[in-house]
């Protein structure tokens, strides 16, 4: 009941839909249509997991006054505040969500404001920090310690020069060689890796369907 039925569902569902692919008949198609209609609805509720564990973790932190507990409010307030304003508050009080953002319809609500001015700049800036780290690592860590590492670095430098317009000023052939590397040796290597990854993925799918791989069951008690 706790483990065997979910495992059986996975196995039956997996085998059924694996075979379904080869059967174009209408009954098989109907089954498939039901699944594509239901799955997003079922999947939508998975968000509950994220919301639940976040709120539990941070309310615990606040209760225990753990290190940096004040910041937990910065998680919890927008977590509930954003949907509250978007779905419940009237538009006159900063509620509502954008209808379509085309044209000059200025967005006013809390929902749009937090997305545009909090979420977007923070996430984009966090990622852009890596530009600084890559520069520092370029100087302090990327070493041509061996023949293979040297090949890697040389190919990288050619590609880097080939990608920027100034590369062509330095040497006419930089962009050409850069593209050649991308289209041929790079492609050969990546195809081999993709095939390996492809087989790995297929094997994992099979392991899950046949119940060999059961990690996904984890953390919900025996």
């Amino acid at each position, binding site marked *: 009941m706790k483990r065997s039925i979910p495992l059986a569902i996975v196995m039956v569902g997996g085998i059924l839909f694996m075979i379904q*692919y080869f059967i174009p008949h209408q009954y098989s198609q109907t089954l498939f249509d039901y699944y594509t209609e239901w*799955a997003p609805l079922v999947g939508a509720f998975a968000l509950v997991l994220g919301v639940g564990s976040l709120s539990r973790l941070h309310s615990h932190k606040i209760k225990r006054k753990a290190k940096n507990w004040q910041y937990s409010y910065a998680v919890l307030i927008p977590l509930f505040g954003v949907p509250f304003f978007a779905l419940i508050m009237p538009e006159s009080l900063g509620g509502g969500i954008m209808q379509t953002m085309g044209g000059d319809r200025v967005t006013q609500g809390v929902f749009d404001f937090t997305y545009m001015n*909090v979420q977007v700049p923070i996430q984009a800036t966090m990622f852009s920090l890596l530009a600084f780290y890559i520069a520092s690592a370029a100087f302090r860590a990327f070493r041509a310690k061996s023949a293979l590492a040297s090949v890697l670095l040389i190919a990288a430098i050619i590609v880097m020069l080939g990608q920027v317009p100034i590369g062509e000023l330095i040497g006419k052939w930089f962009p050409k060689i850069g593209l050649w590397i991308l289209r041929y040796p790079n492609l050969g290597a990546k195809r081999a890796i993709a095939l390996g990854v492809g087989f790995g993925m297929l094997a994992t799918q099979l392991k899950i369907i046949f119940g060999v791989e059961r990690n996904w069951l984890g953390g919900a*008690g025996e």
Partner: protein
Amino acid sequence: MTETIGLWVAALFTIGIYSFLYKENPLYRLAEHLVVGVSTGYGITVTYTNVIQPRFVEPIANGEPGAWILVVPALLGLLYITRFFPNAAWLSRYPMAFLMGAGMGIGFPLSMKASVLRQLEASLIPLYETGMAWDVVIGNVVMVLGTLAALIYFFFSKPHKGPFFGTGSKIGIWVIMVGFGATFGFTVMGRISLLIGRIQFLLGDWLHIIK
């Protein structure tokens, strides 16, 4: 008005995060936490308005014929909540199993086709045809041999010895390194692009110093 305030808030957070490069500080920590809360809150809202409302609430409220059957997937989805009650947590495996099993089953033949057979098909190319430029001919040879050699490198059932496996795996690792070099170069470009994007925001949208 709101727009101006928004720009300043966005600029404040942008600079606040860059201050991390100098030293870890409270503004950075605040931003780090806010982004988690806002993105999840945003996710709840969009999921409700795009999925639950049009696919469940509205059909039932409008009394569409046959809509009652939607109660089944909705109840199944609701079982996720049991995850937070240790005694009933196992029930949350049911919706997972529903999505996982069929998802894997649907994906299996399609992945086989897109990631394996299509790639095999694409590596069977003529090395030379009349009128082909020399760099393309060399390229084709390098590509096909490269794929083969790199596959040999990742083949674990034979020792890397002898003309086929020994030489093959050596060529393989060289080709792989050239491929990684390309990735390296592109990654550098990508990371810098993200920084340029933020500078465009700070100097352009916020300060209007540049176009």
